[in-house]
C-alpha cells in the first residue's frame, strides 16, 4: 500500500506483504465479525458511484456499517453534480471535506487515479470502466485462499470477456505473482485479453495459453473464473448480441472437471452460468460475494490505519 497517500487505485498499489496482511485480516473478520463492530465508529465512507452497481456499492456500505461507521454518497452520475458538468476532481475535492474515505466507481478509465490527486482522504477504485477493479481482485483472492487454502500452484481458467472484463485483468496481475500458477485464457477472438495483460503474463514467467472452447481445458482447471459479456462496454448492439452467449457453463460441461474445482464469477450473472450449477458445491460465486464484504472491511480498516489499533 502506498504509505503516503494510502489509496487503492490498482492492485499494483499493494505490496505482497500488505496483501498477505489484508487477506489475513479479512479471514479474521470472517471468523469473528463481532469483534470489529465498533472499529470505525465516527468515521464516514462516501460511495461515489458515477456508474450503477449493486454488489460493489452495497458491499462497501455493508462493510462500513458492520465496522460501526456511516455511509453517504450517490449511486448514479444522474444524481450527482456530474450531470451538471462538474469534473471528477472537483467532486472528490469537495467530498473530501465530508468523509474520511472515498470509494468511487466511474465509467471512464483512470478516473479514480485522477481523483486521488485532488482528494484529501484515501480513495478506493471501485471500478473504472473496463480498466481495473482492485477490490474485486481482493475479493477473488480471499475467496480462492478460503476455498483452496492457497494462492499458488494452480491452473486458473478465465472465461468470457477478457478484453473489457476488468476483474480478470487485475486477477491475472495479482495471481501471476504467485509461484506455480498457470493461466488459460478462454475467449472469442474479439474479446481477447489486451496486449498489456499478455505482456504481464510474459514477464511473470507463468505458463499461459489462449483457447476458444472451455470444453478443451475443463479437466485441467483448479479455478474457473467466468465473466459476463458486458453490454455497457460495446459501442454497438450487434457485436454484443453476437458475442453475449459464447460461453454457457452447465452441468454437462462440468462432468470432466475436478471434484475440487472452484467456480467463480464476479456477478451479476446473465446466461453464462446455468442456474443448475448453483447447487453444485463447486459453485463458489455467492460465497465469493460474501468474501467481498469481509475484504472491504479489511481494506477500509487498513486505509484508515485502524488495523494497527486492533493489534494493540
Amino acid at each position, binding site marked *: 500500500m502506498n504509505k503516503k497517500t494510502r489509496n487503492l487505485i490498482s492492485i499494483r498499489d499493494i505490496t505482497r506483504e500488505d496483501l498477505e496482511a489484508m487477506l489475513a485480516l479479512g479471514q479474521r473478520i470472517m471468523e469473528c465479525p463481532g469483534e470489529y463492530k465498533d472499529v470505525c465508529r465516527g468515521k464516514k465512507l462516501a460511495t461515489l458511484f458515477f456508474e450503477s452497481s449493486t454488489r460493489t456499492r452495497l458491499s462497501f456500505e455493508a462493510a462500513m456499517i458492520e465496522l460501526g461507521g456511516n455511509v453517504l454518497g450517490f449511486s448514479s452520475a444522474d444524481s450527482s453534480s456530474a450531470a451538471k458538468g462538474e469534473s471528477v476532481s472537483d467532486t472528490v475535492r469537495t467530498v473530501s471535506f465530508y468523509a474520511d474515505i472515498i470509494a468511487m466507481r466511474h465509467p471512464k*478509465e483512470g478516473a479514480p487515479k485522477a481523483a486521488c490527486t485532488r482528494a484529501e482522504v484515501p480513495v478506493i477504485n471501485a471500478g473504472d470502466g473496463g480498466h481495473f477493479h482492485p477490490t474485486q481482485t481482493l475479493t477473488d483472492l480471499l475467496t480462492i485462499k478460503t476455498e483452496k487454502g492457497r494462492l499458488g500452484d494452480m491452473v486458473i481458467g478465465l472465461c468470457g470477456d477478457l478484453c473489457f472484463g476488468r476483474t480478470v485483468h487485475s486477477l491475472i496481475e495479482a495471481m501471476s505473482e504467485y509461484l506455480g500458477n498457470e493461466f488459460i485464457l478462454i475467449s472469442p477472438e474479439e474479446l481477447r485479453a489486451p496486449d498489456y495483460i499478455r505482456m504481464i503474463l510474459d514477464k511473470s514467467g507463468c505458463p499461459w495459453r489462449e483457447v476458444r472452447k472451455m470444453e478443451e481445458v475443463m479437466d485441467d482447471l483448479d479455478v474457473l473464473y467466468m465473466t459476463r459479456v458486458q453490454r455497457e462496454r460495446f459501442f454497438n448492439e450487434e457485436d454484443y448480441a453476437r458475442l453475449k452467449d459464447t460461453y454457457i457453463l452447465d452441468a454437462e460441461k462440468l462432468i470432466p472437471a475436478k471434484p475440487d474445482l472452484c467456480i467463480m464469477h464476479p456477478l451479476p450473472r446473465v446466461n453464462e452460468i446455468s442456474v443448475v450449477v448453483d447447487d453444485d458445491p463447486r459453485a463458489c460465486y455467492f460465497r465469493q460475494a460474501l468474501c467481498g464484504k469481509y475484504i472491504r472491511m479489511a481494506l477500509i480498516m487498513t486505509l484508515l490505519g485502524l488495523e494497527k489499533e486492533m493489534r494493540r
Partner: protein
Amino acid sequence: MNVDGIKKGIVLDHIKAGRGMDIYRLLHLEKMKCSVAIVQNARSTKYGRKDIIKIDEMITLDMDMLGYIDPNITINIVENGKLYEKKNLELPEKLTNVIRCHNPRCITSTEQEIKHTFLLADRENRIYRCIYCDVAHKEQMVYY
C-alpha cells in the same frame, strides 16, 4: 550551417531529415523575436541527410518533447560565438502534455484540466502507456 555564426544561442543538429518543420512548430519558434534558421536536407556523415535549426537566442527547450520526437538530435549551446556545451537526448521516461491519449474511454478524453501523462513502458519498441488507462501509444501518435 556554421555554428560560429551565432554569438549566443542554440543549434539543434542531427534532426532526422524532414522533421525540422515539425520541431519548429512544436517549439513555437514562429513566435520568437530573434533570428531562427532551418536548414533542410543538409549533408550528414552520420545519417546521410539531416535537418538543422539555429536559434539566435538562449531559450528553454522542452527536452522531453525533443527526446520523444527524435532522440538522435544533438543540442549545441553556443556562448560568445563558441560551442559551450553539447547535449545528447534520449527517450524520456515520462511525457507530460507531449502526446494525447487517444482512448475514448480514458478520463483524459473528458476532463480538460488533466495533464496527458505517459510513462515509457518499452524502450526498445518506443512504447509509452497512459498513466490513467494504460493504453499503449507507439511513436508518432497524436501530438499534443
